[in-house]
């Protein structure tokens, strides 16, 4: 059976499982069945695309008699699709495995199970679809099912609002993509991607497609300022679904962008990269700044998804710039960086969401200000979260560093570009990328430190239990992959060869690309190289050697004592640094501009026992400047129009009369 067929079967199995779950009255047994089946299917799908990518198989296509009869459902498996399927299957396997571990009480199986399986099936079809109709069909289905998953805990008004905003934005995105496809298809309505590639669009049309793709894919992926739904919706879903939404679904949005802009549109002018770079850099920085202001663990993670999407799009923007100027090597590096980051972000973001889910399950708390000290109660989860934090903070030798390193390497190729504007823009974007990475590290010191370290801030933590083996297996599987991709990135990058070959002006990264000992040297050995394996071994060796020698030659005893804290040990855990206080310096430096952060301190006079209060007010620029005015405008218009519901019959007749007269006038003018 061909890889494509297996992928389709996997999707079909997932869909069928969902249907079965919908038709039954699912309980615990069903949960086990659904999650088990989807995990196995995902694993099979993963192996299939792995073989497909590593063997360099030629693309396979099939047309099924579904959808619109005169075009049918085109399905195609090529390296690009396979790469995203790889990401998808890994993510879904981990999520399903994690969900298997909801041993005591799977969250709302009747609501979750059918939608979950359907969500997986729809996501599975998105990269495979090779015509506009099937693509949008799967795309919308994906949105719809995840919308239902966001609504699982619908009793909370916040979740309902999140779901609403989410699906509306998803609708906006789909409409943009639809229009983009409409332009690509041309007048004869050739919706198949294969035909679209043949079309050569007029420059304005191509530019319109590009902008629509930025809006459409960007709204789904979470580009600033279209990201607003993301931090609302992702945390609202059950944690394993949050992992999928953040880790995988946003990547499919990236896929749609790459597919449209790099594949379907064809050659592009260089200036396209300018708006993309600007938006991407803004997204990266804004995402992490938003995240720093959060104290809801899952929402913080969701904002980091925004940040990472910015990083990915930065890579894509660079690839566009290079490709337009015929710098195939640069394009290949940038594209590889972006696509590798797609995988990496899925790995560590799923890991983080799953660990956050473990925390949520164990304590029932998402608010970091109520957590603390979990490292003692949940050591394994803490370790997983720590490694995930290090990966997302782009620290060597983990995987996050590799893709950011590649992005920087791509930036270093930018002097070869002929456009002066890009000479200035690209390094600045790179600096913003560095800023985002450093702030991300700060944010994860905060997230990990406040959640897992210190002393418990509430009784919920005191009763926390470590999660079960399925959940730990899911988390540590992802940890292993984070480390693996970090130290042997060449393995993952080798799989991307087929993609860059087709999309980056045919550039195959040179044979010097992967030099001895599996180190990365994208632009020839003289340029720059990085070897995660050596760095890791080096660090491990140094740490081990120093630890050993210290213990061997110096003191090895450890004495425990009370906390010193500069001589003021306060037993109350409330005196610890909180998430808000951790972020305070950053809020003062960046937030006062970006969020117009204002602090107000109410200090009671001496002798007054009432507590002092510190109130922080933040203004979300996306809501404040874009969405709220828009909503207000719609409300205003509807308010005005609504009078039309309460007219008298005579006035309605006036309308009819005027319309009739107007039509007659039109006719009269037409005939003259």
């Amino acid at each position, binding site marked *: 059976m061909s890889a494509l067929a297996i992928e389709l079967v996997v999707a079909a199995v997932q869909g069928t499982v969902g249907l079965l779950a919908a038709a039954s009255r699912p309980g615990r047994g069903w949960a086990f069945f659904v999650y088990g089946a989807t995990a196995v299917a995902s694993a099979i799908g993963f192996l299939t695309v792995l073989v497909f990518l590593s063997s360099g198989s030629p693309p396979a296509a099939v047309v099924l008699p579904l959808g619109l009869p005169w075009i049918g459902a085109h399905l195609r498996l090529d390296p690009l699709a396979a790469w995203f399927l790889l990401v998808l299957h890994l993510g879904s396997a981990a999520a399903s495995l994690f969900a298997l571990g909801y041993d005591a009480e799977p969250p709302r199986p009747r609501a979750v199970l059918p939608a979950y399986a359907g969500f997986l099936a729809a996501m599975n079809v998105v990269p495979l679809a090779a015509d506009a109709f099937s693509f949008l069909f799967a795309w919308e289905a994906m949105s719809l099912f995840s919308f239902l998953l966001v609504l699982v805990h619908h009793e909370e008004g916040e979740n309902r609002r999140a779901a609403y905003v989410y699906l509306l934005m998803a609708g906006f995105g789909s409409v943009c993509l639809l229009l983009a496809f409409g332009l690509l298809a041309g007048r004869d309505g050739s919706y198949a991607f294969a035909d679209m590639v043949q079309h050569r669009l007029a420059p304005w049309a191509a530019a319109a497609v590009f902008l629509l793709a930025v809006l459409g894919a960007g709204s789904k992926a979470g580009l600033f300022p279209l990201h607003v739904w993301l931090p609302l919706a992702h945390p609202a879903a059950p944690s394993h679904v949050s992992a999928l939404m953040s880790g995988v679904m946003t990547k499919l949005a990236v896929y749609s962008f790459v597919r449209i802009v790099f594949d379907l549109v064809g050659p592009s002018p260089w200036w396209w990269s300018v708006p993309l770079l600007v938006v991407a850099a803004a997204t990266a920085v804004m995402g992490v700044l938003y995240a720093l202001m959060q104290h809801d663990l899952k929402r913080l993670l969701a904002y980091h998804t925004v940040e990472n999407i910015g990083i990915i799009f930065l890579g894509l923007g660079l690839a566009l710039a290079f490709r337009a100027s015929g710098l195939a090597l640069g394009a290949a590096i940038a594209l590889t960086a972006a696509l590798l980051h797609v995988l990496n972000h899925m790995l560590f973001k799923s890991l983080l969401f799953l660990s956050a889910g473990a925390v949520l399950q164990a304590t029932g708390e998402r608010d970091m200000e109520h957590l*603390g*000290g979990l*490292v*003692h109660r949940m*050591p394994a989860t803490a370790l997983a979260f*720590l490694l995930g934090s290090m990966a997302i903070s*782009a620290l*060597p030798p983990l995987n996050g*560093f590799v893709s950011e390193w590649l992005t*920087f*390497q791509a930036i*270093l190729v930018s*002097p070869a570009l002929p456009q*002066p504007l890009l*000479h200035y823009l690209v*390094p600045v974007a*790179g*600096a913003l990328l*560095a*800023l985002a990475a*450093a702030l991300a*590290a*700060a944010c*994860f010191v*905060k997230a*990990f*430190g406040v959640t897992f*370290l*210190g*002393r418990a801030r509430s009784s919920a933590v005191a009763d926390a239990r470590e999660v079960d083996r399925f959940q730990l297996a899911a988390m540590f599987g992802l940890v292993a992959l984070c480390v693996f991709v970090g130290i042997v990135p060449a393995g993952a990058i080798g799989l991307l060869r087929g993609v860059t070959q087709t999309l980056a002006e045919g550039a195959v990264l040179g044979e010097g690309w992967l030099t001895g000992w599996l180190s990365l040297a994208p632009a020839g050995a*003289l*340029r*720059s190289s*990085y*070897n995660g394996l*050596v*760095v890791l071994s*080096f660090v491990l060796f*140094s*740490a081990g050697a*120093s*630890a050993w020698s*210290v213990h061997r*030659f*110096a*003191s090895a*005893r*450890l*004495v*425990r*004592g*009370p*906390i*010193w*804290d*500069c001589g003021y040990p306060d037993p109350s855990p409330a005196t*610890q*640094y909180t998430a808000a206080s*951790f972020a305070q310096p*950053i809020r003062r430096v960046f937030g006062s501009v970006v969020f117009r952060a204002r602090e107000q301190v109410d200090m009671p006079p001496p002798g007054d026992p009432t507590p002092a209060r510190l109130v922080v007010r933040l203004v979300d620029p996306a809501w404040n400047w874009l969405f709220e005015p828009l909503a207000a405008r719609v409300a205003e218009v509807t308010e005005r129009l609504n009078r039309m519901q309460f007219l008298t019959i005579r006035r309605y007749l006036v309308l009819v009369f005027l319309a009739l007269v107007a039509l007659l006038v039109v006719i009269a003018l037409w005939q003259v």
Partner: protein
Amino acid sequence: MAGLIDIFAQGLEMLLVVGLAPLLVGWVRKVKAHVFRRRGPSLLQPYRDLLRLFSKDALLAENASWISRTAPYVVFAAVWVAAALIPTFAAGLVFHWAADLIAIVGLFGLARFALAVAGMDVGTSFGGIGSSREMLLASLAEPAMLMVVFTISLFAGSSQLASIVDFVLAGGIGIRPSLGLALVAVAIVAIAENARIPVDNPATHLELTMVHEAMVFEYSGRHLAMIEAAAAVKLLAWLSLIAAIFLPFGMAPGPHSGFGAMAVGLLAWLAKLAVLATLLGLFEASIAKMRVFRVPEFLGGAFALGVLATVLLFVSRGL
């Protein structure tokens, strides 16, 4: 044989880096003491301090987790590896290709991350204040450093330190305004990264102003020693980095360039370190500690200089 020399050279460098670091710290202190017309402690005082700490039992808070126990070693290892990858007396050592300048910055980031996390472990407000400020400073220093990296890499066509050294040695750069700007920027970053005055004061224990010391408050004994040692190595690494990029003169081109060249390189390196450390001491002695919230402006200046350096680079290159 060649492999043996490779390993030897690399090993020598690693040992030298660790061995000389406390001396460097002592040198800086000595310089400062001289400026203040004091005799100051012996040059070897840092060694004695470390030995004293090593010989003591480590005392940890009751609720400290394994994080507190492992972090000092991770911090030390990351800094040590970074230092080992920076060309000191010879460029192109055996593992130089394992990491470029960006990766070295990343390794410093790793060390900082580990230390900041450890600062949160016990759950004191001082640990939190230190970690929080440290991460703020880092988030400002890192982009500035990256701009410098860009400037230099764009010059040299590589972010690999060995290639940069080669390039500078070959006279590829000459004196350029961008290079000067980059030097100032990297100096500022180095000051911030090493918690020196005016950004931080390694000698202070005044709550409101400290950053680095606040993080390591709960440490004692060998753990503290490791952290102190790491700080010393880090200082050495940064000075070596500046030396390697801006003053690579005398450096041996590789481990196979003969004993003589190696010896010259070693001497040159020591001289450069002495000069830079003296400059640092003089600078520190002549300036006051800043308020914490003035520091972002200071580092923002470094970032601006970095950007300017990149921009001017393109101007002078006429690209």
